[in-house]
């Protein structure tokens, strides 16, 4: 077992993950940056009990990137830590989103079975859990990620920003205990469609009292990178003044959620 909890404590169940290390041995761990071996950080705040080791990484200065997790033996040798843990627990990743933070730590298992840690600078965002395409609306729901989740109901809006143009559509969102849901009306998107552009993209933001500037909607918790080609939503065709406009939610190359509006024909997705 090798996990990161939501307080950035790396938990290792040693009997499971390291061969040649007994539970009673005092564990010394270090992290070495994959792209710059000179960057090696010794983990000082380590507690071991029985076969379990808890290493607090919360205060460690770690640059963005992937780090090898190393175990230092009595002779000072740095050994890779092998793991049988797949390095992905959806429930734990979801719990991890609940705390405000600027740095995200994830444990990873590489194809050879070595334990690694990925450190990424993050900003608060709105994690999308469900998208439903209706005849006149697109309904999105999800949770606040890395942002404070106030208790009870709060005012919030989804803002659809027309990319590289000035159009905007604002819709009231339901925000309760950090969970949001919103029906985004599609008629205003049809009305503001610029026919001179082949594609009108509308980027989606969640505006909350503590994030007036908006939190970008995206889906990052499930470990799937590159959703643009992997996830496809149905489109809906709406009659405009001159043309019919087809609107379809999609994930961008950064796995952020947007709406794509194009001049559409019947029967085409």
């Amino acid at each position, binding site marked *: 077992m090798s996990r990161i909890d939501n307080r950035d404590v790396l938990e290792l169940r040693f009997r499971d993950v390291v061969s040649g290390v007994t539970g009673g041995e005092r564990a010394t761990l270090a992290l070495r940056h994959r792209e710059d071996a000179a960057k090696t950080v010794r983990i000082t705040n380590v507690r071991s009990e029985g076969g379990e080791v808890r290493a607090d990484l919360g205060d460690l200065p770690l640059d963005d990137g992937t780090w090898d997790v190393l175990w230092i033996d009595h002779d000072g040798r740095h050994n890779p830590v*092998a793991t*049988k843990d*797949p390095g992905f627990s*959806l429930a734990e990743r979801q719990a991890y989103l609940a705390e405000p933070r600027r740095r995200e730590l994830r444990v990873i*298992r590489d194809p050879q*079975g070595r334990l690694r840690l990925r450190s990424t600078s993050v900003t608060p965002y709105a994690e999308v859990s469900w998208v439903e395409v209706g005849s006149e609306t697109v309904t999105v729901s999800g949770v606040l990620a890395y942002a404070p989740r106030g208790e009870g109901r709060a005012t919030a809006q989804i803002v659809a920003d027309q990319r590289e143009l000035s159009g905007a559509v604002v819709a009231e969102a339901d925000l309760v205990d950090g969970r949001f849901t919103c029906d985004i009306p599609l008629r205003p998107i049809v009305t503001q469609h610029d026919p001179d552009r082949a594609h009108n993209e509308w980027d989606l933001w969640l505006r909350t009292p503590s994030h007036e500037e908006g939190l970008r909607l995206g889906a990052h918790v499930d470990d799937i990178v590159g959703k643009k080609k992997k*996830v*496809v939503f149905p489109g809906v065709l709406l009659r405009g003044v001159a043309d019919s406009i087809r609107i379809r939610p999609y994930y961008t190359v950064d796995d952020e959620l947007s709406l794509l509006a194009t001049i559409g024909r019947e029967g085409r*997705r």
Partner: protein
Amino acid sequence: MKITILIANAYGMGGTIRTVFNLAGGLAERHEVEIVSLVQHTEEPFFTLPDGVRLRSLTWIGPPTEGRESPGRLERRRERRPARPVPPSEFRRNRYLNARTEREVRRLLRRTDADVVMGTRPGINLMLAKWAPRRLLTIGQVHTHLGSHGPDLRAEIRRRYPRLDGLVVLTDSDRDMFADFLRPPPGWLVTMPNALPPGHYPRSSQENPIIVAAGRIAAVKQYPKLLEAFSMVAHVHPEWRLRIYAGGEGQDDLRDQIADMGLSNQVTLMGRTRDLPGELSKGSILAVSSRYEGFGMTIIEAFSVGVPVVSFDCPQGPREIIEHERNGLLVPAQEVTSLGWALLRMVENHDERLRMSDAAIRASETYALPVITRRWEEYIEERRASKTAH
């Protein structure tokens, strides 16, 4: 013992190449093993050559480089003619089985100091049957279904395979088919499953609400049927996901079906992966909706990471690997609703999944490389003894 394995092109990236490399690595622990490729088109093979295994090629078909010239006119003409005794349908499937490579294979067979020579596809097995001198022990490997061969190839197989010293197939169902077709003497024909590549496998926690499917996008995999079955789970348990690891053409059609069926939030087309065991271990169930499976390597890979399998009981493959109710569930072939119910049962029974996960790991040990290698060694020894006795 010196063992030579002949393969059409060891430098490509097919399933046969991967399993041949794997077996060669296992045999190389105690024997001298050489893989001989009829052709070579790149400097380095796609798959990593296992330790202790030698690789060489008989002909260069890549772009001319220093020391490697383009074939002359005579050689080009030979490349257009099938090797003897390769029939037209087999030559159409694999153009490397030509008169140019035949000359090289015959030269190799005349001069080699190997004890055992193995073929890895019908055309090569036929060449061994015709051209190998009596001092060599010849073993044919079968990686494809007998039913998929044309009448001309079947006729050549019937005529020439009996001259081989042994034939090895992947499944018992293949064995039964060849037994009916060739009426071989006892001990000549055996089933030898593919082995799991050695490595440190992860272990599914059975916590993630993820069903996995894997295999190229092809009609035989019947992914539309899997979508239908999964939709029975999806409506009742919206937190469950289906991840399909597949490459190949036809992705657009599948994407449209996913959207049309309202499964966009729950089904993801993951593309290909180089670490299938790693991805399987993130899931809790493997679903197999194939019309037929040649062998079912994915099922064994799922077992190796503690993932039970729900599968159509299609001809070959799954029924020989999955023990129903123990490490997975087999449902009648083509019955989509049964597949859906079986998936639903697994989704809703965490304890059952944990029990099956343990059993799956135990079942996968049968396919460990040292175990399969030992079976090969015993078979080769038996065949040598039988040949000497006659």
